[in-house]
């Protein structure tokens, strides 16, 4: 070979346009990480604080399931306009709260009401969107929870921007964005992960791969080896976890959050799970999936799984289960009470928060509505 070739060889590495990352450490786990039913569970039990952690996860799972059930019941009673249940995905939903610190931010998607409630937001405030009385009933700054995002994946870039801003400020905040398997197809998902990689923002993306986007199965959504493999294209770390194993999700998410917090970069976590209920109460899941498939996954219910393994490991017994069930019933009671009170509705509020100050146009329109309401009230008084 000539000297020229040698020179070129140096130039023609993948680094020709600057330093690039080695792909090897970015590739996800070969198999989804599991703890329940593996030797890792024993290690967790024996670790300092391990038993408490496991009991806490179990308790949250029990309460989480009850939350989903009660919200579903309220919907059947007409108290919620629509409810997209996370039944079957509770391991992911509750792990979120445990993996984040108070200052961290959560960016939920429309199905993630349980994650929001697990983070501490009041159930009534969380559910206003689905009840129909207000878009976002909670103060995002109280528990650092962004509004539930209905347009899919659009909140992922918000998480990146917030994490980036926090990092510039010198804060140790981590942002966690929740996306569905369907949501990963959206351009915003791509742009968010790319920005995260380039900015090295302290952000974690959790994809709850429940196998369906409404009726569309994963095979029609993506041909990727796993969704976690998408990480490599952004130079960020991919992780794959059993999304029905609450301990595994907790562990992997905690590691990811720690990775992001320490400045090592963003992480994309794929949790393989299943939604046991229909897409929403309005959906007819029988149109697109078989009863056998649902039964298969019911046999892998995250709650049953957890309870069985923790009992087996001697971490919980009847007392813990009873205590958790009690707490769950208290929540359900509270929800029933809360939702039996008619919501406070002020039509004039429609104009209040469009801008910091209503524009002259909105003042005119508000006056029109006020006059209409007054006229209506007068008519009713006359009766």
């Amino acid at each position, binding site marked *: 070979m000539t000297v020229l070739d040698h020179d070129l060889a140096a130039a023609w590495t993948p680094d020709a346009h600057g330093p690039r990352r080695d792909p090897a450490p970015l590739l996800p786990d070969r198999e989804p990480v599991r703890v329940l039913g593996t030797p890792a569970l024993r290690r967790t039990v024996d670790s300092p604080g391990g038993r408490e952690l496991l009991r806490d996860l179990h308790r949250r799972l029990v309460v989480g399931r009850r939350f989903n059930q009660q919200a579903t019941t309220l919907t059947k009673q007409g108290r919620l306009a*629509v409810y997209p249940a996370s039944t079957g995905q509770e391991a992911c939903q509750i792990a979120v709260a445990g993996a984040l610190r108070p200052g961290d931010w959560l960016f939920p998607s429309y199905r993630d009401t349980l994650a929001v409630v697990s983070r501490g937001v009041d159930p009534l405030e969380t559910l206003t969107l689905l009840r129909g009385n207000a878009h976002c009933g909670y103060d995002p700054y109280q528990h650092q929870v962004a509004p539930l995002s209905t347009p899919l994946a659009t909140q992922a870039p918000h998480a990146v921007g917030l994490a980036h801003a926090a990092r510039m400020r010198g804060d140790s905040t981590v942002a966690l964005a929740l996306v569905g398997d369907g949501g990963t197809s959206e351009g915003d998902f791509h742009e968010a992960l790319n920005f995260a990689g380039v900015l090295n923002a302290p952000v974690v993306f959790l994809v709850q791969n429940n196998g369906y986007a409404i009726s569309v199965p994963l095979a029609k959504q993506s041909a990727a080896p796993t969704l976690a493999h998408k990480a490599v294209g952004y130079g960020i770390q991919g992780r794959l976890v059993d999304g029905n194993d609450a301990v595994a999700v907790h562990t992997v998410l905690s590691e990811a959050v720690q990775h992001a917090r320490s400045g090592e970069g963003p992480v994309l976590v794929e949790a393989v799970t299943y939604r046991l209920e229909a897409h929403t109460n309005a959906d007819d899941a029988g149109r697109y999936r078989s009863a056998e498939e649902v039964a298969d996954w019911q046999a892998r219910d995250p709650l049953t799984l957890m309870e069985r393994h923790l009992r087996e490991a001697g971490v919980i017994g009847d007392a813990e289960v009873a205590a958790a069930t009690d707490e769950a019933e208290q929540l359900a009671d509270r929800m029933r009470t809360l939702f039996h009170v008619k919501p406070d509705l002020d039509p004039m509020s429609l*104009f209040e928060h469009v801008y910091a100050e209503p524009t002259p146009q*909105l003042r005119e*329109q508000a006056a029109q509505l006020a006059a209409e309401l007054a006229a209506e009230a007068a008519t009713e008084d006359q009766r």
Partner: protein
Amino acid sequence: MTTATPSRTRAAGATTLASALNRALRDSLREDPSVHILGEDVGTLGGVFRITDGLAAEFGADRCLDTPLAEAGILGTAVGMAMYGLRPVVEMQFDAFAYPAFEQLVSHVARMRNRTAGRMPLPITVRIPYGGGIGGVEHHSDSSEAYYAHTPGLHVVTPATVADGYGLLRAAIASDDPVVFLEPKRLYWSKEDWSAEAPAPVEPIGRAVVRRRGTSATLITYGPSLPVCLEAAEAAKAEGWDLAVVDLRSLAPFDDETVAAAVRATGRAVVVHESSGFAGVGAEIAARVSERCFHHLAAPVLRVTGFDIPYPPPMLEQHHLPGVDRILDAVGRLQWEQ
């Protein structure tokens, strides 16, 4: 997320807008092998509103394709399909979920024919369920017609009746131009005596229709507001007003002839639509009616529209939507005492 799909109880002879649309799609697929439907959940599920119900089963998954969840990708893929001679019909799941496809629509779909001096037309139909009144959560009730009507190169149509649902959708799919086909979702389950056996011939796009003759004033409207206007016209009788009602059906092109004639006949006009008023389609209607009928007008053209606010949560939407009272109030302000 999906909103409730009200149960379809069938009265004898009565057909819903939803099934007329389904029939239009089926007939188009049957008659023209180049017609292909694509979108989120349009295949196995038949769409969240069931407008494509049964079509994948009858015509195969390729003709009625479940796509990944990415609206720009769906419309962009449809562009490529149209370039190869197909006639794609795209379903956007809800109004606000068409926004990710905005660039494809405005920068390509609307302009490809013009860009290529007519050589590369894009006969794409983009079906968008739109409007409120269905108790939908945020992002499920937008009236986005003004964005599309303002974009040169697009036709924008919206049916308000079952028969028009069939006829306009057939016309849209048959059109060699891209058509944004706006489906008033709260009328999906409204019924009419319409025979699926002998559907009306497909009318060309661009003609408004006078739904009610009247002498006192003219209501100009379209889509989901037509039934409200007709109701208002009935109620107006008690006030001594005989209102004409024009259903535009096509926002672009605009039927100046029919509209101007209907306004000249009464000398007074109110434009009614759900979408926010500011720089909405109603502004265009009011402006061109004022321009063309100036000396026939006894009063300014008034508008009754949604407020200039983001669409409200379900429990407050009735205050936002133009209703009968608000329309009658506007009619009352048409300077009758002069």
